[in-house]
């Protein structure tokens, strides 16, 4: 069963990100000029403004940097409360806001190693696969 989620941001660069997710790949935009990664998706490199960007594959490995649990329902019942979120430092550098998969608030520890997983979701635009993180 696909999980209902609040709507994604749409647009050419965003749709490209989600298309990679649908193939089970976590890819972020890398800049040909400064070699740095941008996230969330951009039209020009967030570091140097470079326009030549390509979708670079990530290892999917990372560490938990921070976490919080929503006790206030900002999405009118779409998501159960409390709702766990984590901030993952990807091996390649960027910080990625996501959800814990297979663990929750009491098990979250700083710097715990995690690895990406894709779960079936849907929003107003249809089904999609969402990158979340499980204990490594």
């Amino acid at each position, binding site marked *: 069963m696909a999980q209902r989620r609040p709507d994604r941001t749409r647009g050419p660069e965003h749709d490209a990100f989600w298309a990679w997710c649908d193939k089970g790949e976590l890819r972020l935009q890398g800049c040909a000029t400064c070699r740095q990664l941008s996230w969330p998706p951009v039209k020009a490199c967030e570091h140097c403004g470079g326009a030549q960007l390509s979708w670079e594959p990530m290892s999917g490995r990372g560490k938990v940097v921070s976490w919080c649990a929503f006790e206030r329902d900002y999405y009118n019942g779409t998501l159960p409360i409390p709702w766990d979120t984590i901030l993952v430092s990807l091996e390649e550098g960027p*910080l990625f806001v996501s959800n814990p998969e297979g663990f929750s608030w009491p098990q979250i520890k700083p710097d715990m190693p995690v690895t990406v997983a894709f779960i079936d979701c849907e929003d107003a635009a249809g089904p999609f696969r969402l990158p979340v993180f499980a204990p490594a």
Partner: protein
Amino acid sequence: MPESTAAGMPPASRELSRKAAIVGVGETDYHLDYQAARAKPPGYELPTPESLASSAFERALADSGLRREDIDGLSTSFIYGGPSAGEMAQHLGVGPRHLIEGGGIMAGPLPIACAAIAEGKCDTVAMVYAAASRAIGRQYGGRTYDGDGAPSSYYYYHPWGWSSQAAHWAFIWSWYQAAYGATEADLGAVAVQLRKNAQANSNAVMQAPLSIEDYLASRYIVRPLHLFDLCLVNDGAVCLIVRRADMAREMPHAPVLVAGWGEAKAKGDKLNNLVRERLRPQLQAAGDQAFQMAGLSLPDVQHFEGYDASTIHLINQLEGHGFVKPGAGLEFCKSGEMAIGGALPVNTEGGMLSASYMHGWNHVAEITRQLRHEAGPRQIEGVEVSMFSLAQTDQSHPILFARGA
């Protein structure tokens, strides 16, 4: 038609230091208005930006001792929509030759007004700000931030259920707890201190006593942040009357000179900059600009008013500006150094956490009272220099103020 300028903060420069002073201040009745908004007595009418701004303006004008005809500049800052500056001028019954539209949260509008005065566009600017946050049912999370112009961190992460301003501070606080071994009771001390300050402010929205036990028993909004870690949502307005410094002497109150300001924004890697750096690079850079412009240094600051969207973010600013070492901010608060009589009194009116959520304008109103030496039961003895600090999720805008002769 009066000439008008678009918003855009002028760069810090020595030439603009102390060229303008706050000579009038007016605020709405935050405490009474909040009670009325909660109780909704028969005949209660929701406030509008116009009604709030007019009320603050009349008080500021009376406070300044100036006449309506003296107002030759008008700056408007309506956070959630309002009339044009021209319409507001008519509404207030003033005929400014210079209008400054599209202001917003403190700090930007004040340096813009100071620069307009220095450039001779006007001599006396009435700056009106209003926000009817509660009246319009403003939400600070969920799908509020769709659309252009919002920083991506406010809207991008909906599919993961991560949104709201509180979520930013919650990520910082989880990280901070792990990095420095801090506890929830440590952070609660900040909420308790600001409530104590608010108890000496008869216009503060929240004046009931708050203990650490109350704090720990309060509900989580975004765990690990409790209700009392997050700023209020209330309606109100502030008016500041800002005048050319050489025309600000021999007025009813000591002039409050705008001595320096700064601006720094993060480029990329915003979440890392926010959570792990806690804006320190921006706070340092913008602070340096402001101190250089003012010809002052950190030890000169005797009073600090920081943008307390949350308890932890106030600590970020104290640490990031260098008043205390990273990780030492909560101990600083717990040992009473943020109280009046401490090493650096902070948010003496109660801030946005306990006094009023006026987007930094209330902090500058408090600085005005403190530097005039008219803050009554919460006066900091002999204060001459105050610092205001705006810090958002990716940028820093401090302003330094000095008591004028």
